[in-house]
């Protein structure tokens, strides 16, 4: 693993008496694609703005390369930001937009010309030098915004929901584009989004945030498969979150029925939450299942069928490529390693959105 490039230490920030970030601690390694993921108001954009220097934390420190940059103004930081709404300078041509930062740094004319060419090539917009930003589509404008940021060769590129304003197809294209860029440039990307799919697709590391607190930090696989609390489980993908009882190590009672699992260390007869991803549930014949239920809803989703199975007074969400008609009695089976055990939420921010106890 590479060294820490940025270290956020005990960052607290409030606006008008409302705490947005509370004692946040987070480090970012060099060359990492890190995503801050969470619903709106979770503090992810504020975190990014503190990194960019547009906000000063009430307390805490921002360490960059071992130096405290908490009070350093944005124009003195070796970071560049790509803004949510592109923020291109509409009275300047594309070339002038890209050259803006370089001109301030006093680079030579030929250097700037080369850089403009290089950057436009990088974002696949060669020959757009003399166009005006207003004449470009949203996706093109966003790519110019990225080009404008990267010509400055920042150590870190901050991206604030850069794809938020684009349509689905364009968004997917741009995701690949960003991954390619990151690999070609070899710089650190810090990306803010509320779109879990975007986060899972691009990131090396995902930081899930809610109500100013970090809920979980991990690789996309770990976040998806082993959510640490109900909020993360609920926010990332669909899941069945079921209040259960941990009988002992490797044995959990779900809706009164004992299931084998792989988790240990929760103690004996302890109330926990269990997360089971809908695609991890196997529908088998009633006799083979750990539990039996009746299919109550069925929707075709393209890749798979989405079904609801009522068993032991709980509506199970099930994804399967095999179709089971409504009204069929089925058995429910879950492999032990597909059962994820979580501690009960200890605070509001850890709770699943819209799930009552």
């Amino acid at each position, binding site marked *: 693993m590479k060294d820490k490039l940025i270290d956020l230490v005990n960052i607290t920030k409030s606006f008008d008496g409302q705490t947005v970030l509370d004692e946040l601690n987070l480090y970012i390694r060099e060359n990492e694609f890190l995503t801050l993921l969470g619903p709106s108001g979770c503090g992810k954009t504020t975190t990014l703005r503190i990194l960019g220097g*547009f906000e000063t934390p009430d307390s805490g420190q921002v360490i960059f390369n071992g130096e405290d940059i908490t009070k350093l103004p944005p*124009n003195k930081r070796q*970071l560049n930001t790509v803004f949510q*709404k592109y923020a291109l300078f509409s009275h300047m041509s594309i070339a002038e937009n890209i050259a803006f930062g370089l001109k*301030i740094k006093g680079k030579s004319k030929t250097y700037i010309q080369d850089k403009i060419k290089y950057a436009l090539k990088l974002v696949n917009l060669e020959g757009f030098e*003399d166009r005006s930003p*207003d004449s470009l589509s949203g996706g093109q404008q966003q790519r110019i915004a990225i080009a404008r940021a990267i010509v*400055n060769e920042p150590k870190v590129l901050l991206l604030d929901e850069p794809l938020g304003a684009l349509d689905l197809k364009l968004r997917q294209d741009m995701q690949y584009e960003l991954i390619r860029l990151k690999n070609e440039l070899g710089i650190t990307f810090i990306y803010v989004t509320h779109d879990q799919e975007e986060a899972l697709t691009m990131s090396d590391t995902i930081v899930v945030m809610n109500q100013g607190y970090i809920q979980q930090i991990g690789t996309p696989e770990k976040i998806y498969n082993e959510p640490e609390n109900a909020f993360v489980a609920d926010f990332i993908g669909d899941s069945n979150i079921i209040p259960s009882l941990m009988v002992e190590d490797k044995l959990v009672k779900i809706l009164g029925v004992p299931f084998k699992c792989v988790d240990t260390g929760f103690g004996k007869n302890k109330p926990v939450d269990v997360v089971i991803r809908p695609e991890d549930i196997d529908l088998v014949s009633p006799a083979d299942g750990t539990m039996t239920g009746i299919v109550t809803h069925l929707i075709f989703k393209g890749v798979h069928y989405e079904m609801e199975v009522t068993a032991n007074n709980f509506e199970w969400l099930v994804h399967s490529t095999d179709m089971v008609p409504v009204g069929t009695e089925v058995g429910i089976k879950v492999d032990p390693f597909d059962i994820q055990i979580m501690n009960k939420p200890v605070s509001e921010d850890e709770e699943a959105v819209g799930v009552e106890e």
Partner: protein
Amino acid sequence: MIKKVSQKVYMALIFILLYAPIVTLIVLSFNASRTRAKWGGFTIDWYKSLFQNSQIMNALYTTLIIALLSALIATILGTLAAIGMQGMKKKSRTVFMGLTNIPMLNAEIVMGISLMLLFIAFHITLGFSTILIAHITFNIPYVILSVTPKLKQTKRSTYEAALDLGASPLKAFFSVVFPDIMPGVLSGFMLAFTMSLDDFVITHFTKGPGIDTLSTKIYTEVRKGIKPEMYALSTLLFVTVLILLILINVSPADSKKARKVITKRTKAVSIICKRVVPALMAIVLIAGGFYYAGQGGLGTDDKVIVYNWGEYLDPEVITIFEEETGIDVVYEEFETNEIMYPKVQSGAIAYDVVCPSDYMIQRMRENGLLAELNYDNIPNIKNIGKTYLEKSEEFDPGNLYSVPYCWGTVGILYNKTMVDEPIDSWSVLWDEKYKDNILMQDSVRDAFGVTLKYLGYSLNSTDLDELTAARDMLIRQKPLVQAYVIDQVRDKMIGNEAAIGVIYSGEAIYTQQENADLEYVIPKEGSNIWIDSWVIPKNAQHKENAEKFINFLCRPDIALMNFEYITYSTPNTAARDLIEDDSIRNSPIAFPDDEELKDCETYRFLGDEFDSVYNEMWNKVKAS
């Protein structure tokens, strides 16, 4: 079909209503005849003489400099204020926005008076700088108003993007935010420029002696009738404002179209905006600075501050006086006695020599505003006719305070072709024969004065029975009167629109030149004789210079110059003897016999109480 036609007719009506006055003005500015009652052929002479009139050009220059400077400074301050307010929280922003809007909605006169009071309170001498400060003050809200919407449209993120790319906050503002709000700033500047250009009320209250903008200059001419040059000037002003408005409204749309691709042409435009315009402004300002420095007069202490009626002194006379004595004349004009009085009384400006009318001199004397004259310094008093000094004693016993300058009578102007009998009495004003052919002066003292004289009373009567009788006479007369007017008596009589009019003698001479059928008479019952005289206010700083000035004006050759310029009767008998033209020297209008003046009285100030009695009765007449 009908709907369409009526739509068009309606539109046409609206436009006629809106633009008929301005079209009239423009047409008159090309009228060769001096009077607006006659079309004398097409001419551009008024435009030529306009540009040769140094007073007007001076006022024009002052107007432009003040408009430019105040707009520039207000634009800077207003833009900064708008940016500051944009950064505020919503609640305080709303409060501040409201506060800045109030001066715009506030009555101008309130603004003017309060600014004047403020300047006086802080002992700031009224002059160029006070006008400038006042204009900046009332311009700032307009700039804020036009910049704020642009600021609201500007995304904060572009500013942050510039910071992010390494720009300092100042650089980020000028290279990113400013171009975005530029249209708003520009239109704010234009708006401020225009507002400053045509402001009258606030300028009027905050200006000092010796300085005039176009609007105040035009207004001072009210008493003697507005000269056609002013029509020409107003036309030019209208055209200028029109062009400015077109510029304000057209430029943003244009630039948006041109934006698609940033071309060389838009670059050229931006170079013009960035380099050429500021350079031109700088040149004008610097030239202006030299101009004012060159004038120098304002700086020296050897001066005399003159406060006179508009168009009431030959400018050449001032030049000669300055050359002969080395004393600088700071010259300011007023429009009516009532406007002059509070200015002198407030002491905001220490005038050295003022030219009020008879009744006002009495009032100023009674209120202790006047200094006694030292006649050792005014030997030329000997040139003033005895009759006039005697008449002056009615308002200035002993001639302690005033030296007569101009005088005249009130009489009847009639059209020989429209009346049957020789006219010699006020009684014609009550003659049913002339129903709807009579013009009365729309002024309380003149209307009552005429009636009281006709009834055989004094025109300064304070006897309620006499006044009631006069009032009833006026009510009886009302159905016969075509109109109660002031200036228009002259034009209507020239245009043969009425048979009989009450008029001042000074105007009568001029009307006769335009229409030979007109005749002037002082009715046998007697009338009003008015005298405008020079006085020195008690707080004058240059009393000796003021006396030198008065003495100078009493010199026969100088008095003659002024007589020829003003055309009102001069009390200077030595000057009268110098008049070459017999018909003028012996004109019964300009110089009536002493016998005719025997029953003529000057108005006296009757005190506030009787002022209101007169006004109340006059209102009854008007309302009957």
